[in-house]
């Protein structure tokens, strides 16, 4: 976790000396600093800086969990232009579906023999399902499998519930907590900037609503995640604005567990033609800048389903300490053209992490370490 002589030389040359000094002193970097890091086009030096922070916090530990995804319905009243998952109804013709409660619960329970510790539930905004569908879903899973952590419903869904069923955010979250909710996923944040939101997800919850829901959850003791969908029409300053709002809320509540930049996937949606998938370089610098800017976030996650195995392995040298999990049953990215496997075995994850010179650590839903898998062979430093 020291920065080499040569890295110092490169950082000085790039004019990043002052930012480096702040990072090494544990001081917060500014929005301008972040923009400079985005634009410097010196990936190796940027990586050296981000890696310093990553190793200071976590050493070589690289976290993952054993999780399964459940998407009970893809029917959605919203019309986000980057989405390839949503359908307008659950008729066969439109390829829409809605699982019965039995079906959804059974899908989760069938994974029991695999040692899963977390279920990740997100859905479309279904126009007709009653609130009881969601509470019942959670309570039935909770009852049948008490030790399984339930991470469910993005702020967009929670906002939809509040509006549709006439409840406050607090009422919605409390009802779901009573049914078994443990944590809230970070989806639906997209890019907070109103210019971008108007263009790509006009009818979705606003940035303020998204942040208010997470604020409420944190106040109620529910940990949540935060995401950012990058690589479509947003500008770099809008990415920084997005992270600034997250950093500010985190200062207030300390309720976010992890920040997850998500690469936009262009297939089968309305803006894909105009905007190709962001390149791997963009992914790596975004992760590295996030690690340096979000000084109050413990974890930075590279989601392998979105980036691919080779890139997330590379990302382990660019500030990333979390690779999500085994991810059974991923649908949303695959419908947008992702060609990565539907799931990674724990062994493959270990191999991927170890080949990068890191140490795999299985975590639970709350980032408590369940088991550190020390390398069986002498490690190669990363």
């Amino acid at each position: 976790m020291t920065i080499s002589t040569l890295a110092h030389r490169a950082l000085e040359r790039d004019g990043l000396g002052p930012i480096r000094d702040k990072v090494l002193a544990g001081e917060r970097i500014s929005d301008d600093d972040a923009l400079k890091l985005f634009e410097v086009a010196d990936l190796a030096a940027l990586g050296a800086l981000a890696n310093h922070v990553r190793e200071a916090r976590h050493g070589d530990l690289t976290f993952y969990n054993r999780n399964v995804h459940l998407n009970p319905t893809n029917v959605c009243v919203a019309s986000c232009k980057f989405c390839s998952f949503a359908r307008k109804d659950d008729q066969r013709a439109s390829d829409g579906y809605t699982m019965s409660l039995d079906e959804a619960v059974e899908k989760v329970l069938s994974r029991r023999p695999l040692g899963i510790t977390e279920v990740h539930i997100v859905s479309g905004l279904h126009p007709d399902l009653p609130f009881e569908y969601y509470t019942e879903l959670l309570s039935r899973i909770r009852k049948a499998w008490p030790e399984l952590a339930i991470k469910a419903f993005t702020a967009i869904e929670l906002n939809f519930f509040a509006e549709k069923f006439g409840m406050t955010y607090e009422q919605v979250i409390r009802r779901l907590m009573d049914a078994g909710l443990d944590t809230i996923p970070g989806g639906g944040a997209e890019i907070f900037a109103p210019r971008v939101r108007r263009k790509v997800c006009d009818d979705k919850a606003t940035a303020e609503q998204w942040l208010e829901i997470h604020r409420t959850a944190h106040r109620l003791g529910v940990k949540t995640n935060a995401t950012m969908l990058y690589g479509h029409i947003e500008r770099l300053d809008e990415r920084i604005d997005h992270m600034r709002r997250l950093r500010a809320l985190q200062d207030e509540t300390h309720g976010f567990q992890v920040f997850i930049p998500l690469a936009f996937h262009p297939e089968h949606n309305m803006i894909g033609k105009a905007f190709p998938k962001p390149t791997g370089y963009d992914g790596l610098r975004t992760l590295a800048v996030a690690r340096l800017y979000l000084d109050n976030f413990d974890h930075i996650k590279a989601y392998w389903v979105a980036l691919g195995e080779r890139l997330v392995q590379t990302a382990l040298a660019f500030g990333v300490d979390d690779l999500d999990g085994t991810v059974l049953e991923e649908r949303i990215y695959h419908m947008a053209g992702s060609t990565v496997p539907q799931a990674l075995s724990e062994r493959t994850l270990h191999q991927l992490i170890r080949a990068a010179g890191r140490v795999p650590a299985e975590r639970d839903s709350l980032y408590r370490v369940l088991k550190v898998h020390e390398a069986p062979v002498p490690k190669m430093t990363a």
Partner: protein
Amino acid sequence: MRKIRAAAVSFLNAWPLTAGLEGSERVELVLAEPSRCAAMLEAGEVDLALVSVAALTKGEYEIVPGIAIGADGPVQTVVLAGEQSPAIWDEVFLDTASRTSHVLAKLVLDGMGVHPKFTPAPALEGLARAKGTKGALVIGDRAFDVRASHVLDLGREWTHLTGLPMIFALWMARPGTVSPADVQELTRAAQHGLGIRTELARKFAAQKGGDPEKYRRYLTRRIRYGFGPYELQGLEAFLERAAAKGFLPKIQVRFVDDRAPAVRPRRAVSLDTALQKGADGERLDADEAERLDAEASLLDLGVAADLRRRALHPGRRVTYIVSRNVNYTNVCTTACHFCAFYRPRGHAEAYVLSREELARKIDETVALGGIELLLQGGLHPDLGVEWYEDLFRWVKAKWPVINLHALSPEEIWHIARTSDLSLDATIDRLVAAGLDSIPGGGAEILDDEVRRRIAPLKSSTDEWLTVMEAAHRKGLRSTATMMFGVGEEPRHRVNHLLRLRDLQDRTGGFTAFTCWPFQPANTRLAPGDGSAQAYLRTNAVSRLVLDNVPNLQASWVTMGGGVAQAALHMGCNDFGQVMIEENVVSAAGTTFRMDSEEVERHIRDAGFEPARRNMKYELLEGARA
């Protein structure tokens, strides 16, 4: 050091494997009849023997990997002969010399629905009695001279029946007697012997009479000596079918462990000093290079390699070329263990591209702004120098704009051997026909310890370098490559880089270097070292060690665009090819695709300015996607 004792037959087809053992310090060679070889092995009088595969039933022998005597089509020296068609034979006399051939004869006849009585008889007697509805099996060198109205070549029949090569003989060892160093010695001998097949054919003709050219063609075009995945399939198919019919007991195939342990003691060197020397373009020695390869962190290497790249290529230009990879044939006799592309000659998927197919590919390439044809193929035993000359002349006449970047050193050696030409003469003729430059393929790891294990019958390190040196001296430019992650140690990769650097000091003929990890078939994530981080590390080390090679290409084809972009920030100044096809890599399961627009987007997005180049790294004015 105790020598191991090895028995072998004196048949012509064994000569290329045994000739190089004369005077060996590790192996004492005993020549004997086939049945005697098998008996000596069984009795423990020898440690290993070059014997027919049926001998595997005599003990729990281990097979020496990589080498075999086989055929994937006509073999000429294992035949059934008779006056009438085999379809009506009711008795077949079996030459007493080889049990494997007996079983093969029975399997082939069984496959034809013919079930004669089998009677043992010495070869000449059997042949004399093969009249009317009777046939005879003749094997070995005497089969060359068989004259009969019906001759069934059992090599051809087997390949026809199964689509697989037939393996006749293998080096088999008593368990635990043969060390990795011995395997290296046997492989070295085989490489040597295969390199002097023309000479061996002449020597054989001088001893036994007959046409040396016939023997040369037999050794270079009929018999194949590689033992790779298809050959293993062929062997297993033979053993399974023989067991199913009750001709042989069931046999489990085992191999000698051929992994040598690491040895060389290293001088203590400072990582930091080595990194700084590399970044500043000072020459690294083997110890420094090895320490960097083994221990430096990815980012330290990356920062150092980036400093070095900036010194060599100031500014933000990143080049690429529009060229097309054409693999003119997938038929290959080398049988490298890592290759998912090659097929034996008789295989259903074997091909040689027709002129029509080639013309279509080149027309497409030119239409897409392509200026280069990267032409590589397997080592096809039937293609001689004339075939290549015709092809090159045709390409050059029809598409003068196309640079012919063709034929890896391996193929050039192969052409020299199948056409009985010197290396110089071969290159001269190819250049006269239109060859412009040579791709650096087939280098794999230029360290014979590794090379012999993964590609036993490929040219040796010296041979690969010899072709490059000869080509450079004739004014040709070439590229250099390294395929790592095949179980080698850091010292092997370093040796590879140092050998390239030495040659470059002498000739300056390499324009660029590129490396990539071995891509195992049908797995998304390469095991161990075949990872993205290993790629970036190896690439950066290469930039630091190869201080005299001007350009480093990022390998997006194998690693994907994102990792290749990272490589641009860790030593590379070139984004390789807009590649219209690449069969070899895609056969192993990697299918990254990009057109020139996408290549340029990746270059720009990573903070650089794209520019098109030719093979010599000259910029092409105004050529943009």
